[in-house]
């Protein structure tokens, strides 16, 4: 068996043993379409890059999980902790450096997923009473000289 045949066989095996999750293609199509729509408006936010994602057990009995996400952009780092999951999910966030910034939770289509919050002096913000589902955060410094940023979507 030559190498190409072997590699084709391996690809088939990986497709079978670690298949693409159900619905992934549809979710990615929706993400891409929503981004096209947003960019067609006067949306001018730089995309933050994900550098870390972890889930850990939380709650007194360790029955729920909280999700930690860390993003990075030019001159900006954002840490987000979601959950533990309840009926009204909450997000605790930290922004470095702690510039005065408005944080808006958005659904992928750009509509509001909850009330905005303001980053405090220590760089902390809290979003409460969010509507569950896919959200992304837009970070808009009050000083227009600083760029605005947006995270990719994540589920709450």
């Amino acid at each position, binding site marked *: 068996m030559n190498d190409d045949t072997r590699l084709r066989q391996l690809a088939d*095996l*990986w497709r079978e043993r670690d298949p*693409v999750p159900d619905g992934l293609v549809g*979710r990615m199509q929706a*993400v*891409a379409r929503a*981004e096209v729509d947003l960019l067609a408006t006067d949306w001018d936010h730089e995309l933050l890059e*994900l550098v*870390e994602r972890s889930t850990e057990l939380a709650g007194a009995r360790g029955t729920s999980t909280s999700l930690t996400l860390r993003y990075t952009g030019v001159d900006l780092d954002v840490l987000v902790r979601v959950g533990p999951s309840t009926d009204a999910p909450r997000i605790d966030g930290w922004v470095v450096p702690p510039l005065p910034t408005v944080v808006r939770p958005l659904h992928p289509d750009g509509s509001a997923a909850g009330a905005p919050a303001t980053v405090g002096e220590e760089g902390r913000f809290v979003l409460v009473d969010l509507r569950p589902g896919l959200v992304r955060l837009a970070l808009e410094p009050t000083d227009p000289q600083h760029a605005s940023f947006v995270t990719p979507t*994540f589920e709450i």
Partner: protein
Amino acid sequence: MTAGQSGRVPETSAAPGVWSVAADAFERWRDGDLDALDELVALMTPVLWHVVRAYRLSHEQAEDVVQSTWLALVRRRDAIDDPQAVGGWLTLTSRRAAWRVSARAGSHVTLEPDVLERHVPSEPSAESTVVAHDERDLLWRAVAELDERCQRLLRVVAFEQRPDYAALSADLQMPVGSIGPTRGRCLAKLRTALTRPSGNDLGSPT
């Protein structure tokens, strides 16, 4: 010469034509056809999944990385001059993000238990002895016995048409010139594991 070799990595397991179909869809999307973006996403998401999972990310981490890749493409579409390059641009972008996330995860790499189970050769049982004779299971077992670097390299080259060896060498922490030979060695190890008498698969230490 290594650079020359990297350009001649033969079309491998991604079905022939995937990359040119992707280029065609990208071009039509760039010309204003939004349905072509859906086609491109449907075509390349499975390739990105396998490339990203080669970095041992969890399902959730892998999905985040694939998502970031598509967001980056929508935002940086105009930076891709040659439509033929879109497949390579997508896989390279996703590998960079996967590498970042997996490096950050460091020692506590998370794997779903079911995947872990499939990676670890299991204790023989009457049932598995029968199953192990299935060729695909034998191959899967042989893959699981390879070191992590071989597993990653083979999965990436199995799904990418022409992997960027320079970027791969950084990911795999090996010189560019040794990727081609390493690929050969990994495939040779796999052959050896497969030709071993089947009794050795069933648990005796030597």
